[in-house]
């Protein structure tokens, strides 16, 4: 019998690919956002609304993760922005390797903001860095107002939480403020916005968040260019 003792980070390869992807995106001045949330929470409609509201001024592209179908990618494709559909097969999440390939497929497009729609799931995506710059979680009141408390891990590293479908909160007996409070307690750095992506309530605020993100990236680039000149 022979024993070899190690201290090897098993997830190192995934982390390395994620860092490589971030550097690649930085080199192309693309800011990328990982959009996570349960099935039916409103991830795809968020992208549709973004194309409608800020698509004129911000060059958008998307990666749509789905277990087997192409339905989400199809919905986004109809908005006219470049999109790559990623079928994860049996997997319940996207990983950095899949994103690296998807980005290669988008090499010909000019992109300011890349929207990565993760597989509908509030558990597994929390464990995977995709190489994006920011993480957004979309939750909806119809999932019950204890949904945040039930899945705290996904909020730990998130930058923005959108509590969606607030227009039907009363009908489903959910308190959106409880959801917002829970998210802020888990992660004091998170920004929380109450919205109804379908009716338009709160959508301007959500759009501003993304516009600010792109503007800050452009600002950084200008700064670098000025320093370089």
């Amino acid at each position, binding site marked *: *019998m*022979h*024993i*070899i*003792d*190690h*201290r*090897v*980070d*098993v*997830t190192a*390869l*995934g982390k390395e690919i994620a860092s490589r992807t971030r550097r690649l995106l930085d080199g192309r001045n693309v800011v990328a956002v990982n959009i996570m949330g349960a099935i039916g929470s409103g991830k795809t409609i968020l992208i549709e609304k973004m194309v409608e509201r800020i698509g004129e001024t911000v060059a958008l592209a998307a990666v749509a993760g789905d277990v087997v179908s192409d339905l989400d990618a199809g919905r986004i494709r109809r908005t006219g922005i470049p999109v790559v559909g990623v079928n994860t097969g*049996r*997997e*319940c*999440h996207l*990983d950095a390797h899949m994103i690296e390939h998807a980005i290669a497929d988008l090499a010909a497009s000019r992109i300011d903001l890349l929207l990565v729609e993760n597989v509908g*799931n509030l*558990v*597994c995506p*929390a*464990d995977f860095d995709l190489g994006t710059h920011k993480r957004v979680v979309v939750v909806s009141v119809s999932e019950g107002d204890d949904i*945040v*408390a*039930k899945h*705290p*891990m996904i909020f*730990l590293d998130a930058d923005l939480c959108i509590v969606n479908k607030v227009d039907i909160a009363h009908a489903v007996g959910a308190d959106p403020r409880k959801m917002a409070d*829970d998210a802020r*307690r*888990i992660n*004091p750095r998170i920004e929380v916005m109450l919205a109804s992506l379908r009716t338009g309530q709160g959508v301007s605020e959500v759009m501003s968040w993304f516009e600010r993100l792109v503007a800050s990236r452009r600002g950084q680039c200008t700064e670098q260019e000025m320093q370089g000149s």
Partner: protein
Amino acid sequence: MHELALAATIIESALEHAGSLARIDEVHVSVGCLVMASPEQLAFGFETLSVGTAAGGARLIVETTPVLARCASGHETRAMIAQLGMESLMGVLECPQCGEPADIVEGREIVLTRIVGEERPPAAGRT
């Protein structure tokens, strides 16, 4: 729920770091208690995916490790969290000493710690 993917990366790492072992009998990993994976399903995934490799038939031994959190004042909390619900997590995310928010320092990693197996037999001389 993504134990199969994690098991595959554990097998890859074990094969890569097996050195001169011709056969692997045990693979030890420590898994932070905040990783969203169950040890039983990891072991099942390992058993299934290792077939046909040098780790085929080997046992995966999972040690669950505690979370370490540190607040801005430097207070450290170490705790084993079995149920990843909000209330149990808040026990480390809100510093028990000063109540300030704390950051997770450890508890989300998967580390390969030991490989046990049989050495490759000495190469036979050419005839």
